[in-house]
Structure formats: structure tokens, C-alpha cells
């Protein structure tokens, strides 16, 4: 049984390290992308089981990447958790409209994030 693959799209190294540390003790395999274009390449190559998508990305925004992923057959049903910059800014509304499965407001609790990931993508079948 191969480990479930999670792609984290996030430009900030510190934030990427939080998720990296968080998932270290789990069976999930973590892929990281620093921007939207790279994430699209990785998605087509690696076909992750779940995507953590930060909304505020340089150049191509998380909203646009989400919309693109949803329009492609391979990723049309892949769970996408949108990491919005702020719970009350309206980002989550836009993320939902673009096709995100769930959202998490930044700053998020790693504990809550892991719970959400496990809910959408159980570690083992």
C-alpha cells in the first residue's frame, strides 16, 4: 500500500516547514510547490491525493490554480483545502466558488489542519 500524497502549495518557507513537521510523524507523503505554475507541473506529474492551496501566491493566485485544477479531468475530484489569508476577508467565499473542498483561515492551528486532512483523506483505507 503506497502512502497518500499531499501537495502543499505555499510560497513561505516557514509555513511549509510547519506542515512538513506536522506530517513528519504521519504516513502522508508531502510534496511542496512554491508557486502556482510549479504546482500545476507537479500535479500533472505526481497526481497528489489532496492539495493544500494557499490563496495568496505570487503571480498565479491560488484561486486561479484551483479553478484550473477543477477544469482538468485528473484533478476534477481531488480534495483541495484552501488556506485563506484571513477568515473574514471573503477569500474563503471566492475559494469555494473556484471549487475548493474546504478552507482553513490563516493563522491556522496545525492540530485543526491535521484533523481536517485526516477527515478528507484518511491515512489508511
Amino acid at each position, binding site marked *: 500500500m503506497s502512502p497518500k500524497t499531499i501537495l502543499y502549495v505555499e510560497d*513561505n518557507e*516557514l*509555513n511549509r516547514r*510547519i506542515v512538513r*513537521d*506536522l506530517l*513528519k*510523524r504521519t504516513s502522508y507523503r508531502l510534496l511542496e510547490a512554491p508557486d502556482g505554475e510549479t504546482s500545476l507541473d507537479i500535479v500533472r506529474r505526481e497526481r497528489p491525493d489532496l492539495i493544500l492551496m494557499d490563496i*495568496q501566491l505570487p503571480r498565479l493566485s491560488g484561486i486561479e490554480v484551483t479553478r484550473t485544477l477543477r477544469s482538468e479531468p485528473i484533478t476534477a475530484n481531488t480534495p483541495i483545502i484552501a488556506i485563506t*489569508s*484571513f477568515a*473574514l476577508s*471573503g477569500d474563503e*467565499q471566492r475559494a469555494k466558488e473556484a471549487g475548493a473542498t474546504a478552507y482553513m483561515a*490563516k*493563522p*491556522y*492551528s*496545525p*492540530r485543526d489542519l491535521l484533523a481536517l486532512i485526516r477527515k478528507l483523506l484518511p491515512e489508511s483505507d
Partner: protein
Amino acid sequence: MTEPARLTWFRGFSSFRARVFWSVVPIVVSFLVFQGWMNVREHRRLVTEEFEKRGQALASNLGYASELGALSEDLQLLEAAMRGTLRNPDVSYVLIHSRDRRVLARGGQLKASEAPPGDARGDRPSTRQVERAGQRFFEFVSPIVSERSQTPDVVLLGPRVRPRGAEEMEEVIGTATVGLSLAGVEAQVRGLATLWSGITVAFLVVSAAVLYGFSLRITNPVKQLTQQAQKIATGELDQQIAVRSRDEIGALADAFNHMTRSLRVSMNDKERALSELGELNRTLEDRIRQRTVELEVRGQALERSLTELEDKSRQLAAASRHKSDFLANVSHELRTPMNAILGFNEMILDQVYGEISDELRRPLTDIQQSGQHLLRLISDVLDLSKIEAGRMDLVLGDYAVLDTVTAVRASLASLAAEKGLEFVVSVPAEMPLAYGDGRRVTQCLLNLAGNALKFTRQGRVEIAVDLLDEMLRFRVSDTGIGISGEQIDKLFTEFQQADATIAREFGGTGLGLSITRKFVEMHAGHVWAESEIGKGSTFSFSIPLRMKGTMTS
């Protein structure tokens, strides 16, 4: 004849003066001529009559005087008888004829060859006109009577009339003829006719002159009136007609002068009014021009001010936008390190990196709570700056009132439990769906309930909701320290807390209430507070169950 001359002539006939003249003169002339003719005729008749009488008398006298001479046919006696007669200046000639019509004697301006024979009917006196040598004469014939023989059936005429039946016998023995020249009479008649003609002409001239003068007295004022009227028609009103008479013309002139004066007065009034009006107009125009210029100047100044104001306003808006953008950016930038701090700290607490001692757990928990607090403050600042910049939009939709209360209770339950406070919520069982920005309503309720828990040391905090007349009322009451009336008024102003010492004891910036007020007002609602020092406070806000339209701050 030229046209103007014809007109003058025509006017001459049709003018009043001409009409008077031509109606009076023929009467006068015909009267004078008739009178003259009658006079001359009568005079001629009288003169002729007298002439004839004298002639007959002369002839008769000559007849008597020639009785003896004729009887004797003595020329000397006859010439003596004729001499007396010839002394009369009118007598041109005399003739004495015998009974058998022979010329016995002649005298005066008559040649022997011209002497006619005696008249056949010489026994009666007669008168006749004759022409001799181109001259007209009156001839008077009288019989020469002798008293020698008497004939009873002879009719005796003349001055020596004898009673009928007289014994004496009279016999005609010849005729005496006296020729009187008509020249004297005719000259007299001619003189008279001439005199009359002269009188007629003189009378005519005088009467024409009088008529002319009289008509002048009538027509001159009329002419003047006419000229005056023409002048008035052209606008000249300063002339008066000289009034000389007291008749109808004078009255007319008087009336006319009066009319002219009135007209002048009214014209003067009118002109004055007109000039005043004109003056007024000019003044008005000047004033309008002046006012227009002033207005233009003011308008330009105003425009400049407006432009400046617009610039300032734009600058201000831009500055405000910049501030808001800056705060949003700062807020976002702050969030990233906050995320890292809180994330790592939580993972340490959750022993992701290994076991931690209880001594370490205490400060790590403090870091976590302070970090959360800092995060809330950052959120409040961002919200307020957005509201101030007018960039805060409500996201309208249906929401369940129960959900908002439940969410607030869920996020604050742990805090209440930590402080050992009773935390209750009451929402009516059957509550219709509300329309508005559910998340902002939740935020407001969270602010109020958070404050209530913060400022209450013991007792309870209660959230109650009710619906009255389509208005939702949220009520958060506590048994906390309470606040004074004066302080309540300041509460909802930005950055106000009831007391600086309270802030130190309980924390918070006071931003929560300001943001709550703004959101409630954006929902067309209002917020208020009741409190009693030491007993507790109740903070309430009411908003329409279903708000209308989209509102921005």
C-alpha cells in the same frame, strides 16, 4: 400745367376761403349789376320823361309866340319868337311851318337844305325821334293856333283850353317844331352808368377785401391749427396758437392749445418715464454686467476652490486608501509570522517535537494565548481601517440566528469554563431565517460576549435573542463590574475604554465596540448599553430580521 400747380389751383377752389368767396361774390355782383341796371333804366326813364315834357313845353311856347309871325308870315317876328327858344342849351334847332307845310322860318343848327316840310298832322302836338345828318334828335311839334275863326267841332288841346261852347273860334295856321339833341340825355345816362359801374367795382373790391380779411380771420387759425396738428404729428409740441378772437375759432384754438399742453405734459411725462426707464435699463444692464462679472470671478474662485477641494479630497481618499492598503498589507505580513509562531508553538505543545516538561508547558501556553490576542487585535485594526476607507462590504445572504449564537458559544465556552462563569444562551425555538451578513453579526455578538466574559469575575453571562416587529434583538448581559452612564456614552467611540486601569487589568483596545457599532449600523440597526456599577451590564443591538439591499460603511 404742372402737377403741383394743378393741385394748388384745385386747393384754391376747394379751400374754405375760396368756397366763401365764390359763394358770396356772385350774389354781390348780380345784386349790384341788377341794381345798377334798374337805376340806370329808371333814371333814363325819368330824364327822358322830363326831356319830353320840356320839349313839349318849348314847342308849345314857341307855337304861342309864333302866332302873330305865322299870321303875318313876318320873318322878323318869327325869328324874335325863335330866339327865346334857341337860348335853351338843349335845343338844336327850331322850325316854323305854315298851314300848307311851307317852311316859314328856321333857326339853330339846321341848314336850309335840310329843313323838312311841315307835318301833315300838325294840328295836334306830337313827339318823334328823327335822325338828321347822322344825329338823333327828339322833335316836338306843336300847332300854331289863331283865335280868329271859331269852329265848334274843333277839339282844342294844350294849355289854352277853353270851355266847351266858347264863342271864340280857333284855327291852326301852322306848326312849331323844336329839335332837341339826345346827346345831353345820353351823356347823362352814360355818366350814370359809368358811375354805377364804378360803384359796383368799388363795392366789389371792398367787399372782396372785407371777405378776404374775414375769411383770413377764420382760415388763419384753422390753417395754424392744421400746421400745429401736423407738427404734433411729427412730435413738436412746444408751439401755441395765438388766440385773437373770442368766437368759436378762438374756443377751438383754446381747446387745441389746452390739448397741446395736456399732450405735452403727458408726452413729457411719457418721455420722462421713458428716459427713466431707459436709465433704469442701463443701470440694470450695468448692474447685471457688474454682477455677472462678480459672479464669474466668484464662480472662478469657487471653481478653483472646488478643484482644490476635489484635489484635496482625492488626495485624502488616496491617503486613506493607502493607509487602508498599508494596514491590510501589514496585517497580512503580520499574519505570516504569527502563523509560524502560533503554529510551531502549538506543535511544541502538542509534543510533535517530543515530550515537554510541565514547567515548559506553562510559558508555552502563555505564548499561545498572547499570540491569539495579538492576532485578534490585528484583525480589529484591519476591520476598522477597511470600514473607515469605505471598503468594507457586507456579504449578504440568508443565515440562521441560532448558528450565530452557537458559533459564539463554541468559541467562548472554554474561556467561560476557565473563569468558572455560567454561560447560557437562549434563542426562541421557531426563528425564521434572517437576511444579512451572518458572519459580521456573529463577530458583533462575539465582541459583546467576549467583553462580558472579560469583565466578569464571577456570576454568569447570558446571550438572549428575541424577535419583535421584524426586528431581531441580541442581548448580552453579565454580572460584571458595570460602568457609569458617562462612560457608556464614550464606549462606542473608537479606541475608548471606560477606564485606562480597566484596560490594564482586563486588556483590549476598545476596538471591538466600535467595530460592532459600525457593523450594526451597516445593517440599519442600532446598539446600546445599560449598566449599574457593581451589578453588571447589558449590551444590546437590534437589526432588521431581513435587511434591504447592500450597504457599505
